[in-house]
């Protein structure tokens, strides 16, 4: 398959692994930012192949995982309001809120519809004028332009039965928060290639200067990841941390200007509650006042207060800040499993715990008899 097979070539992968092994003088610590990268690193055995040469830790790049339980509670509440249909990406449905997941709410009669695109939710609202359709707008800068487009489309169609429950988050402020934490051990970043495709990577220059860390814009296929790791390690060995793009087939320095313009037209930057992290300065997006008509919180009178949740057992903050790896969590695979999760990282398809559960949960050391 074009653009897939080329980046999964086992021979080239093995060559890159050898290059990395012969390059390093010490075991460096790199953080990948995106949950998609975490899954690929484990799925293709890259973390294992390089374990003696580089410590790969996994950052807060799973949008589902950082969505506060208050947002899921709001979504759950909306789904059981008469006349309301909550539309969501499939990923969100299994994530536990403080009461229950959206799947559970649906089984109890909540109206939850999963869609592939926010524009599908707009179309659904257009076709069902008697229903109030709320789209659960979750995700980083990768998905936010699509939800912005949905709002613009709904406005153009003069829909009065479409709104957004916004819980969008921004990557760079979270990376800054991680570096400002005294506990971190991060020496370099594999920046999320798809976020950079939208935002560009100009803004990482100041970040790399300030914290003296390499930032390598990295894709998601095995060869992308190996190239990104090689580049970050090369910079660390040379002592010249910099911003480099190793995902040039998708990301440009300026990013996608059309998407950026749409984002700033519809959203403004706000401080934001991250699940497991607390408030991150400039860490999220909210609808601008001109689009207040499309704000589900206003339309349905949901409070903006971020109430203090009961303490969560889930160690997602420690996992997503790279302080511990999922198997080091005392609940991993015991009280917390995909069927009965304590937190989102165990059930989201981009969650770090789900990656370890799926690809590493058992010790595998067997030879085929054939």
């Amino acid at each position, binding site marked *: 398959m074009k653009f*897939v097979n080329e980046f999964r070539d086992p021979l080239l992968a093995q060559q890159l692994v050898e290059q990395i092994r012969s390059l390093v003088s010490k075991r460096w610590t790199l953080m990948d930012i995106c949950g998609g990268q975490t899954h690929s690193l484990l799925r*293709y055995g890259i973390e294992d192949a390089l374990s003696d040469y580089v410590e790969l830790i996994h950052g807060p790049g799973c949008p589902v995982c950082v969505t506060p339980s208050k947002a899921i509670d709001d979504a759950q509440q909306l789904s059981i309001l008469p006349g309301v249909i909550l539309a969501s*990406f499939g990923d969100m449905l299994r994530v536990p809120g403080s009461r229950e997941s959206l799947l559970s709410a649906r*089984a109890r009669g909540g109206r939850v519809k999963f869609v592939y695109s926010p524009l599908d939710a707009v179309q659904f609202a257009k076709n069902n004028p008697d229903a109030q359709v709320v789209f659960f707008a979750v995700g980083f800068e990768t998905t936010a332009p699509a939800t912005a487009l949905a709002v613009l489309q709904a406005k153009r169609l003069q829909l009065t039965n479409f709104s957004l429950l916004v819980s969008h988050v921004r990557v760079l402020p979270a990376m800054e928060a991680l570096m400002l934490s005294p506990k971190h051990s991060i020496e370099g970043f594999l920046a999320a290639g798809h976020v950079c495709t939208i935002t560009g990577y100009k803004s990482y220059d100041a970040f790399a200067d300030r914290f003296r860390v390499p930032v390598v814009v990295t894709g998601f296929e095995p060869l992308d990841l190996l190239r990104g790791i090689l580049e970050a390690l090369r910079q660390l060995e040379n002592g010249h941390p910099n911003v480099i793009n190793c995902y040039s087939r998708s990301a440009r320095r300026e990013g996608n200007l059309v998407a950026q313009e749409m984002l700033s037209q519809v959203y403004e930057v706000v401080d934001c509650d991250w699940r497991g992290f607390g408030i991150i300065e400039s860490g999220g997006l909210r609808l601008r006042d001109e689009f207040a008509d499309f704000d589900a919180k206003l339309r349905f009178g949901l409070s903006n207060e971020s109430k203090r949740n009961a303490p969560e057992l889930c160690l997602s903050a420690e996992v997503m800040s790279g302080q511990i790896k999922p198997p080091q969590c005392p609940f991993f695979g015991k009280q917390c499993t995909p069927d*009965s999760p304590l937190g989102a990282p165990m059930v989201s398809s981009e969650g770090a715990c789900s990656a370890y*559960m*799926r690809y590493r949960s*058992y010790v595998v*050391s067997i030879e*085929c008899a054939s």
Partner: protein
Amino acid sequence: MNPINNLLNEAKTLYLTCPSESTAKDVVLLAQGEGGRLMRKFIHERIVPILGTSTIEDAVRIPNGAGELAITTDSYVVSPLFFPGGDMGSLAVNGTVNDLAVAGAEALCITLGLIIEEGLPFEILDRILQSVAKAARECGVAVVAGDTKVVPRGAADKLFINTTGVGRFRSQTHLSCQSIQEGDILLVSGPIGQHGVAVLAARENLRLTPEPQSDCAALHHACAALLDALGGDLRAMRDATRGGVSAVLHEWSEASHSSMKLDESKIPVSPEVRGVCELLGLDPLYVANEGTFVAAVAPASVDLAIEVLQSHRVSGSAKAIGCVLRRQSSPVVIERMLGVLQPVDEPSGSPLPRIC
């Protein structure tokens, strides 16, 4: 006291009241009917005890003086009713014929139970029934009994079908996943994930080119030929419906107390299924099939098995995809690039597409 201990203590006090489980205790979840672990638990811990049955095979032998009969039942609730490569009518016949076929039985007759939502246009019902008749003719199976219910609008989604099939075992060879042994080779009869992806694309109107086609087909000729050619060297067959190939192998691993090893590079997946799975973050191993089966065969008969299967259209691209190992800590493992072996998790509910 370190923070982990603090948390463990907190856990002891909080865990009992923790409200955040995603599995409800008092209502049936959709996920419990979607294949995989939740459904298996649901069947084994709730339904089977109530029914008092103990079998886990696709069909059971009924003692009978004149020979042994097989009986199986399945319900069909697919949405949409029509999808590229099939419809609910052909599915309802082929699915039940296949459940008999993979158990080593030849279908003799099926019953047909219809649950229809009021307001279903005759035109749609006619098309589905015609499809039932055509598929039954092609399989040489008689539809011998029927039942029709109409329920109020909203109580069913257009149409549900149940078929029960009765068949006759072809030989004394007792196919059972319990007879799978270390060293056996795992075969798959064709490209995997076609049905699940075709239905998903049709349901969600994904407008893909080329449009993925369901593999919906009757497997009885291919299964019978394989059984006749291999005899006791054919250990087990199973059509890989909901939960996909992964769900079958997990069941086999449990029943045979062995582990199943797959080689990713050998598993046939069509470009369109692979494309959809890449796009949506799904794994074809977990996606449903309706005309593709997995077989475990003795190593000495692998070449013969592949030759026999490839001579039938429905299994023309049959391949060996793995082998059976002594039981390890992981029930199912897969060898991926860089030669790394990884566990294949049991599906938990239907796969949900990712955000980005």
